């Protein structure tokens, strides 16, 4: 079970991320999770949004390089050390995490993170087996 993430190329200069956020908002799409990874010169903006297709169209129209990446949304167990349990499961099973970041929107008492791994199927299986709840695309759309 995966969710769709938008990955957007941005230059490392003031105002880029906010102008992207604005054009998405203007299209009536909400941002559920966001992270920016950057080097000195460029960055990659990663977004989980309420309407992937619409956001992608808007960004493409604005000359952005944007791609859709499948990632895993994980509901972190509501106990102390919940995140480290998830990370431990990954490393025990030899699953390399490329990056992770948190959702902005918190539903109820739970926290959610986005995990980017090479092998989504394996990660999903490992997590499900351990009784950890994964977030579906429908969950995102319903947020």
């Amino acid at each position, binding site marked *: 079970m995966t969710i769709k993430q938008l990955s957007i190329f941005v*230059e490392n200069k003031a105002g*880029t991320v906010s102008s992207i956020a604005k054009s998405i908002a203007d299209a009536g799409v909400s941002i559920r999770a966001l992270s920016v990874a950057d080097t000195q010169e460029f960055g990659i903006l990663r977004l989980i949004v309420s309407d992937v297709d619409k956001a992608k169209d808007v960004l493409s129209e604005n000359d952005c390089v944007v791609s859709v990446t499948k990632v895993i949304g994980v509901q972190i167990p509501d106990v102390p050390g919940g995140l480290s349990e998830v990370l431990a499961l990954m490393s025990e099973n030899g699953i390399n995490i490329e990056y992770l970041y948190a959702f902005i929107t918190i539903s109820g008492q739970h926290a959610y993170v986005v995990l980017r791994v090479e092998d989504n199927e394996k990660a999903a299986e490992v997590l499900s087996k351990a009784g950890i709840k994964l977030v579906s695309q429908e969950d995102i759309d319903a947020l």
Partner: protein
Amino acid sequence: MENYYQKEIETASYEQIRQMQSERLVKTVNHVYENNEYYRNLMKKKGVTPDDIKSVDDLHKLPFLTKDDLREAYPYGLMSKPLSECVRIQSTSGTTGKRVVAFYTQHDIDLWEDCCARAIVAAGGTKEDVCQVCYGYGLFTGGPGLNGGSHKVGCLTLPMSSGNTDRQLQFMTDLEATIICCTPSYAAYLAESIYEQGLRDKIKLKAGIFGAEAWTEQMRKDIEAKLGIKAYDIYGLTEICGPGVAFECSAQSGMHVNEDHFIAEIINPETGEVLPEGEKGELVFTCITKEAFPVIRYRTKDICVLSREKCSCGRTHVKMAKPMGRSDDMLIVKGVNVFPSQIEEVLLKQGLTSNYQIIVDRENHSDTIEVRVEMTPELFSDKVNDLSKKEKEINAALKSMLGIYANVRIVEPKSIVRSEGKAVRVIDKRNLYN
């Protein structure tokens, strides 16, 4: 008191020079026609035979040679002597695909070194001087040319080659160098280091001979003030022989072309028509004394003006102004010839688009080159590592093509300024020709 290395030749009358040039031109054309198939074919195509060339006045009848010819004829196609008669090659730096290899007999080396010796003497050099050569040695003509010239003058020669500034400064102070030969940007860099390290009182330099890249009058003033020297320009290109094709004298107002070895013409770059003295156009050279690799009517692509006005130094050879630009899009960065088309080739091979921009600048007296290229969906990844790796790959590919480091910067699509739909390819912030 003006000193000359070869006074009789350097101060010969215009008639004497013309006479000498005519005789040598006829001889060279015959030599090349007999021994070089490539140029013979060019002459045949134009319907010219050696019999048509009786004096300098007939020079315009001969076909031009261009860098493309040199590339097509690479490596041996423009030689007019058997390899067994040659003793040396030199080559332009690092530019694969556009590399020029020039061959020299011992006679060719001698005349080249004579030309460099004239430049050193014109800059005030004598056998009492200590001449520090910090041009690169090796395939690049800068080091070997000035080294040979310095030997001929009888200077104590310090064959330093380029780089290693601390060692340069140590030898300069310990061995009391009086003349320095290098690129103007390196001279400016050394001047700054000397100033910063408080060595100004410890150096004995009196003159510098600076070439292989364009520099401005402002740079000359800065270097002269910081080092307390006179700074002289020198011009040359590997295709003709290397540095010493033309050099500056005490008047410091243009470079005397060594006319007993090279005939200079100015042409209209569009039509190829020869322009009268004083008009601006493309500089063309004909070698009239070389044996192994005597190029005839070689188009330098440098935009320039020639002047026969009487010079205060007493030399009579025609003077060329500092080149005022290029008739092609070649850039000279850190003394290396860079063509935008080479950069484009690398980018396309790496899966990038031709939406790129080259930005050349000068920081701390050293040239920098940045290549901006627009991100494409194919190249993009959501992982920083992938993009950094790709950037490194492009950097390495450019380095191996150009021979110098060019910083690649991937930018957002459509972010490169376009003019009438086309990306502005080159931005040279150095203002070298002002």
